């Protein structure tokens, strides 16, 4: 017996697959799959999100990042105790002498 091809696979929208008819019309099986809904929207992406590939490769990005950090006007350490970026790697020295 063929049965319903997709079996009991769940879906997030109960209207999906509602038009689907099983292969054997003489034995109609339940076509409404189990539906799951998210209980929160913390992990949903922003509606206007567009995912693109960064054109610059990672090495160039690193160069630009470090240049920006160095050329940023220095502030007194007491005023801003927290680091400007979240990065925690120690800065190696680049003096030439």
């Amino acid at each position, binding site marked *: 017996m063929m049965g319903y091809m997709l079996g009991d696979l769940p879906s997030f929208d109960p209207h999906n697959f509602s038009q689907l008819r099983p292969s054997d019309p003489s034995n109609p099986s339940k076509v409404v799959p189990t539906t799951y809904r998210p209980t929160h929207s913390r992990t949903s992406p922003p509606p206007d999100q567009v995912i693109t590939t960064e054109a610059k490769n990672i090495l160039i990005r690193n160069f*630009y990042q470090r240049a920006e950090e160095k*050329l940023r006007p220095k502030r007194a350490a007491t005023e801003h105790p927290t680091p400007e970026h979240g990065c925690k790697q120690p800065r190696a020295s680049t003096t*030439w002498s």
Partner: protein
Amino acid sequence: MFKTNNVTSRIFERQIRTPAPGTSVHSARRFYENLVPSFTIYDVECPDHSFFKFTDDGQYFVCFSRNRQDLIVYRPTWLSFSCKGEDCDNNQELPPQVKRFESFFTQLYVKPLASCNELICKDFFLYMESNQFGIFATSTAQIQDARGTDGAILGVPSFEKITIHLFRLEDGFKLDEKVFHNDCVNLTHNMGAFLYDDLLAVVSLRYQTIHILQIRDSGNLVDVQAIGAYCREDDELFINSSSQLAGNRGDLVDNGTNHDQPNSNNSFLSGIKQRLLSFIFREIWSEETDQTQRVQCLKKKFYFHFQDYVDLVILKASRNTDQLPAFFAVYNMETTEIVAFYQNAADELYLLFERFCDHFHATSINSMYMNFISSHSNNIHALEQLKSMKNKATSISQFVKKMLSSLPLNCQSMSPSPYFDQSLFRFDEKLISATNRPRQSTDHPIRFNSRRQGDILKFKIKTGPEFGSADGRSKKYSHFLFHPVWPLALSFIQPSLFLPPSAVNIHFRR
């Protein structure tokens, strides 16, 4: 992906199983564990040419004539012969024609490249795979007492004429050329030039300029830009027009062939140096400005390297001696800004080199095989080797300096052969490696062990029949040329680095 080592069962497995996503090339390359160049033909009779390189797609084998005037190109083929008799399959003897070079290579053409007073630069060759174009260089002899003229810097040798030739390798037709007069370009091992997609950059050491040329599909070499004295195309026009108004410049009569030379009376530094100095200044502006004065006095030479032809060019300032400081700079061609500047012993630069070595190669998207060349950034075994070298080094700063002195990495300098893939084979990097340099040869065969199959021996490369060290005093040098795709390699034994090879061997899969 494969459960067995047997090639037949691997072929059956390949029919029914798909490799993990993104690893189809890696799975296919594992067949090289089964097909190895284990058979050697010693002392092949070959013509007296200077054998140079396989093109990276394996289509051509480039050689130069011994007198360094002609280009000779072969097509690699495979040995084929017929056997008469009953027991051909078990016949251990190969016919005598296998000892001939022509059984493996078909000559396509011989073309004159250098005119009478020029010589071919026999370490220089760049290949443009998309059009099968080859780039060669010839130069005249060095001028002994080079005078500093027209913005040329002192201390750099001068050659009367250096020519870059563009050839169509299919038939040896010369497409175009670019001539540099009274100039110096470092052409050994492709150091002074870089090819990225269709852009070729050549560094003129004497005039401290980077010439960017475009290779059109029609075969023309077109000047795109010359970065050095002027960063943008209209800089020269601007400076000339503003100084004519001010009236305080010297004679601006045409300097001859090179228009973008700053006049010797010029009080301006070259455009690119201005960019560099302003970057350095901005970095240390909060500290005393005496350091800026000191930096201004430094003389630098530039090499360079492409990352992205729209955005960046990486320049390296280097000197031949170790004592003098060397620097590495990143320059954005489009915005004409310097992005980064490091001394060559900078830890920060070394960290980037360790993690992102592949990006220093600046591979274009078109050449897929370049993504599979083993480096310490893409291969754990290579990284372990690097780390062990670092731990053994007596001085960390010397080690960092030595590693960074190879930056920027030369274009097309590594062989793409899968036999150098560190995830497939383990071999002694001191005896043989993907960068083709002559090394001191050893009597013992070079072993290639399998990485994945319990370090068993897969094949050996022997450079000569193993003999006792009767002639133990004589040191020999050997270098190897591996075909990029086939299980085929050539080895050359030279009694000294300056003499032609005394023996040529062919290693292939029988």
